[in-house]
């Protein structure tokens, strides 16, 4: 959450609620109802690290709203973030651990595990399809995120098949 | 049914070119076959041809006591008589020309050839009346000399040509006059054989009066509308004229039998080749259809998946291709029936004449029917295989199993042999059953063409190299008794420069135990000067009592070389030792030949009847003949030795027509081959482009593959064709009594032409489709390449 928020602030100062709305609009159905609390906490941590600077704004009849803007350091941090390449975790090691350990422990049948996980993935896929159908076609970011998730799921399912082939 | 029709129609529309080609090919093949049949009727039955062309008379009545116009009128009123020829005045005479004599019956004819039994003028012209009207091919000026038109066989024996002057001696008063030969004609009458019936000739009535005045003999010819009714009509005619007046009745069956001769040889040859051509046509059709089915395997699988039953698929193909075959047969038959006579040359003549020959209708319908039936059978097989295609459109259906590159091929590529040639070679010789089947099918028409060429070369040998086929002496000379004989004659005969040797000879009939007919015994040559027999097996007779026999004799008496044969010659027994087999084209091969010495041993009174003159290869027979006639005065009778070449000559035309049919069939096969090759290589198009071949190289690969296959097929077909043609001709020779050993192989040049034509045809057939395939834009969808 930290660097996306910093990146959003490059457009100009904003306060927490605005940032939440921005996220919602950007990500659409892929990230519906973001957690406001998590945003405020993250903003606080960012301020403490000196990447953003906050400022209170007077509001009549309400508690003060805190507006944040990007500092030099924060700007540098965003540039560095865009520069680096990302490595995502490649393997859902928890599930694989289960498969690997099932025959050792004798408490579960690997094939049964695989089948159940597959069913779960398929249901998730079904839900993702429905999500994509319901989302606005023009929100390319959202559509791409959903498609990315579907492709990952396809890869996971293919890998499940491989596991089944090898472990049978 | 609707669905099948819809599919067939759309299929037709998509492959219009193939459909048109199939129809045209069938039409061409059937038309050529019909022409071949027409030509063979023309060739194998000369009497029939002449009879039809000349509107021959079925019955000739010869009377000795005159017959007039009212007789003719009465005869024409007999039931079944459609025309009367004559009555013509006739008279006997003897003709003499160039030392040869022949008996002749002259017939008085008007200056226009008659309508019924019209003699067909083949050289010169018909008789002209003195006041200038003429008829015939070359209208010449009438001269004061009396003219005669000779019948063809008589003219051959006399060696007379239009414009020659010959001597005519009347039988009644032995006065001799000269007459000019105006022309030579063919007639449907018995031909002239020396020692047989008198020959025929036509003169103007005035000329006949000169030679045989007051002759009361007449000839009347009757043309019937039902040839089978001859006997009945003859009875009625004889009754009408009066049995006492009629001296001779000649029926058409007799004439035909006499003119028939040994044409079984030809007939059988034609039958074999004709059947072979039909078979080859059926195979070509089957091959073309199978190729088409293979190209459509995917579509057939889809159709089955959609719901076509196998029977429907089979029916679809069958109906389509049967329709092509029927349409082609109809077009070909109609073309020949309507336009056949218009073809220039002898072919058109034969086609036009064929329509009047008996059996024409049956042949015109029967042969196309047989061809269509055979094609239907072949189609059924291919269609049945189409029905067996599995309904699952599989990708791996027709991929060949890969054969690794042979070291030879690799070396060739290393030596910078063009890759197109190497790849084409590999593609052509894949050693898969389908490639071998295509090779065999393409080789078959080439095999038959080569066999036909062997037959043609053999027939040609009778004319150009008679010494190898049993006729070593070109001329036969008979001297009148009392004239020069013995050594004097020998010197006289060998004097002209073209003569190599003169061999004395005698011929007699002999009886053999167990046979009712006679065989011919010949004594030719002496021990000092042996006759050059054409020996096929064994050796020439050298010692006493040795002889060579023809195949016909060996078969008749069931003896082999080395056996002794006993016979009775002119009342005396004779035993001969058969030491060899000679080639005997005459008398059915039932001839035994020995030396004159052997016969003289038994009967010292035997003197040579004739001399056979062996000429140098480049000598001109007629020049020698003229020289001898001059030297010998009128005492020598010089003739051409009997040679079967004349009656075998027309066969060449038939063989040419059959070769044409087979060439068409071969072309069909080549086109199928080219099409299959293009399709197979087209599948590899992507791969070939990937390894770096340019489009031109790719099309060169396809063309090279087709060319190599054609080359292999031509080599195979020519090789096997030489063998089978040789065997066929030898078998025919043996069966007809001439004897094995007559087969001649065609020259290397001719064979090379056949091979080159086959390869050129394949290359031409493959060139355009190959170029089109190679330049095709590659599709990126997978289904295109599969």
């Amino acid at each position, binding site marked *: *959450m930290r660097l*996306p928020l910093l990146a959003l602030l490059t457009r100009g100062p904003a306060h927490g609620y605005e940032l939440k709305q921005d996220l919602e609009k950007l*990500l659409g*159905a892929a*990230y519906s*109802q*973001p957690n406001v609390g*998590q945003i405020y906490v*993250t903003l606080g*941590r960012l301020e403490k690290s000196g990447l953003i600077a906050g400022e209170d704004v007077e509001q009549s009849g309400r508690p003060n709203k805190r507006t944040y803007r990007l500092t030099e350091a924060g700007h540098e941090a965003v540039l560095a973030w865009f520069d680096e390449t990302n490595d995502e975790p490649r393997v859902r090691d928890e599930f694989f651990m289960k498969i690997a350990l099932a025959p050792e422990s004798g408490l579960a049948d690997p*094939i049964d595990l695989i*089948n159940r996980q*597959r*069913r*779960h993935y*398929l*249901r998730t*896929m*079904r*839900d*993702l*399809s*429905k*999500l994509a159908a319901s989302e606005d076609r023009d929100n390319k970011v959202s559509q791409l*995120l*959903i498609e990315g998730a*579907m492709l990952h*799921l*396809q890869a996971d*399912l293919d890998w499940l*098949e491989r596991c089944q*082939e090898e472990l*049978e | 049914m*609707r*669905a099948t029709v*819809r*599919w067939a129609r*759309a299929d037709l529309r*998509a*492959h219009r070119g193939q459909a048109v080609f199939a129809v045209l090919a069938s039409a061409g093949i059937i038309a050529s076959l019909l022409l071949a049949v027409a030509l063979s009727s023309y060739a194998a039955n000369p009497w029939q041809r002449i009879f039809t062309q000349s509107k021959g008379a079925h019955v000739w009545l010869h009377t000795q006591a005159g017959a007039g116009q009212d007789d003719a009128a009465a005869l024409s009123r007999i039931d079944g008589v459609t025309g009367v020829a004559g009555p013509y005045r006739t008279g006997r005479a003897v003709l003499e020309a160039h030392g040869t004599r022949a008996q002749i019956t002259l017939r008085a004819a008007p200056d226009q050839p008659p309508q019924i039994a019209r003699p067909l003028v083949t050289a010169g012209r018909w008789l002209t009346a003195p006041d200038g009207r003429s008829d015939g091919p070359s209208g010449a000026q009438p001269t004061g000399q009396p003219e005669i038109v000779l019948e063809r066989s008589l003219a051959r024996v006399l060696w007379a040509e239009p414009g020659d002057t010959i001597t005519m001696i009347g039988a009644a008063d032995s006065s001799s006059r000269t007459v000019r030969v105006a022309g030579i004609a063919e007639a449907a009458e018995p031909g002239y054989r020396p020692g047989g019936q008198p020959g025929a000739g036509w003169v103007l009535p005035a000329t006949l009066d000169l030679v045989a005045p007051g002759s009361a003999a007449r000839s009347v010819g009757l043309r019937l509308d039902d040839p089978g009714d001859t006997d009945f009509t003859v009875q009625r005619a004889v009754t009408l004229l009066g049995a006492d007046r009629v001296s001779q009745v000649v029926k058409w069956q007799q004439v035909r039998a006499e003119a028939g001769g040994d044409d079984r040889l030809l007939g059988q040859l034609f039958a074999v080749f004709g059947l072979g051509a039909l078979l080859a046509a059926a195979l070509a059709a089957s091959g073309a259809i199978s190729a088409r089915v293979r190209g459509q395997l*995917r*579509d057939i699988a*889809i*159709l*089955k*998946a*959609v*719901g*076509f*039953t*196998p*029977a429907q698929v089979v029916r679809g193909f069958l109906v389509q291709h049967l329709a092509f075959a029927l349409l082609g047969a109809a077009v070909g038959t109609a073309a020949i029936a309507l336009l056949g006579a218009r073809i220039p040359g002898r072919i058109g003549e034969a086609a036009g004449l064929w329509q009047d020959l008996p059996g024409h209708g049956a042949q015109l319908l029967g042969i196309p029917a047989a061809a269509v039936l055979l094609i239907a059978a072949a189609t059924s097989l291919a269609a049945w295989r189409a029905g067996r295609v*599995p*309904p*699952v*459109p599989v990708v791996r259906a027709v991929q060949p199993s890969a054969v690794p590159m042979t070291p030879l091929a690799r070396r060739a590529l290393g030596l910078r042999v063009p890759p197109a040639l190497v790849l084409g070679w590999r593609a052509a010789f894949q050693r898969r059953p389908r490639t071998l089947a295509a090779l065999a099918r393409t080789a078959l028409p080439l095999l038959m063409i080569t066999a036909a060429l062997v037959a043609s070369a053999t027939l040609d040998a009778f004319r150009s190299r008679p010494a190898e086929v049993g006729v070593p002496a070109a001329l036969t000379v008979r001297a009148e008794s009392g004239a020069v004989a013995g050594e004097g004659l020998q010197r006289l005969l060998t004097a002209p420069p073209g003569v190599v040797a003169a061999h004395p000879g005698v011929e007699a009939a002999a009886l053999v135990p167990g046979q009712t007919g006679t065989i011919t015994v010949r004594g030719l040559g002496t021990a000092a000067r042996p006759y050059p027999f054409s020996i096929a097996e064994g050796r020439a007779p050298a010692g006493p009592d040795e002889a060579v026999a023809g195949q016909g004799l060996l078969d008749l008496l069931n003896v082999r070389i080395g056996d002794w044969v006993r016979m009775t010659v002119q009342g005396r027994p004779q035993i001969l030792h058969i030491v060899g087999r000679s080639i005997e084209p005459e008398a059915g091969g039932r001839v035994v030949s020995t030396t004159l010495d052997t016969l003289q041993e038994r009967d010292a009174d035997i003197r040579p009847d004739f001399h056979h003159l062996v000429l140098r290869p480049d000598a001109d027979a007629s020049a020698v003949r003229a020289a001898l006639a001059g030297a010998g005065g009128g005492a020598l009778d010089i003739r051409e030795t009997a040679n079967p070449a004349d009656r075998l000559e027309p066969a060449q035309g038939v063989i040419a027509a059959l070769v044409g049919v087979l060439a068409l069939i071969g072309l069909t096969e080549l086109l199928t081959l080219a099409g299959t090759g293009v399709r197979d290589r087209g599948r590899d198009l992507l791969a070939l482009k990937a390894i770096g071949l340019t489009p031109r190289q790719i099309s060169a690969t396809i063309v090279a593959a087709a060319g190599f296959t054609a080359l292999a097929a031509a080599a195979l077909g020519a090789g096997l064709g030489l063998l089978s043609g040789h065997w066929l001709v030898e078998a025919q020779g043996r069966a007809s009594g001439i004897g094995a050993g007559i087969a001649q192989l065609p020259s290397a040049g001719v064979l090379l032409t056949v091979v080159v034509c086959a390869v050129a045809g394949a290359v031409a057939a493959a060139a355009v489709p190959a170029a089109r395939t190679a330049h095709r834009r590659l599709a990126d*969808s*997978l*289904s295109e390449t*599969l």
Partner: protein
Amino acid sequence: MSDAAAAGPGGGIPAGDAPSGAGGVPIVRAEGLTKTHVGEGAPVHAVRGVDLAVQPGEFVAVTGPSGAGKSTLLHLLGGLQRPDGGRLWLDGRRVDGYREARWSVLRRRSIGIVFQFFNLVSDLTVADNVELPALLAGASPRDARASRAELLAELGLEGRERSVPGELSGGEQQRVALARALVNHPALLLADEPAGSLDSKGTREVLRLLSRFHQRGQTIVLVTHDARMAGAADRVISFFDGRITDDARLDGPEPGPRRGPARGPAGSVSHVVELRD
């Protein structure tokens, strides 16, 4: 549904996690189907003792690694190949003994098939291709034309009647194939990787069409690799090494606890994206 019964030979078929099926005759029922391919090399046991039942209106997806025999199973259900053993019922009629001709007649009216490639006869136009099954089933040319026009319009292919398959894109060809498969309103639609050779746009189109027809009540059996297509089905059968290893219904609540992102109401995923610190 037979997957609720005892395990077949060679490994158990886990019980489906849905209440056993509706009453009435299943459209397809198979018991112990077996098929072995004999080719060059060792024989391949493509289908070993498969039991299956498909109810009318179901959308069944068969997934599994390639070479597992899914296509062979589909071919067996459609009569394109004859089983070596086992029994097969279509709409209550025993069909495994039918000869090829009888299968063809059955396929005309009752089964529509869509393959991955080679769906259309290359010589016929689009219109002819679509009308052919109708004509085979005995419809008059006029009725066939009407059905064809309706279907082509529905699939967005008006104006392409006279084109030849060679002129169409891959996606268009598959749509025509679908039209052809559905022109007779068959009881069963079999599809073997219909989107296998298409790009993602083509896949989406095919998926949309299949879902649309399924909603109208078409029974569909689909063989696919694509998880998205499998996810569109009601029921997913996992096919592995010639046997069915799993048979799951995808609609209905998911049993058992799970760990992962929170789920929103009605089982929908609430966060595709995870924004963590």
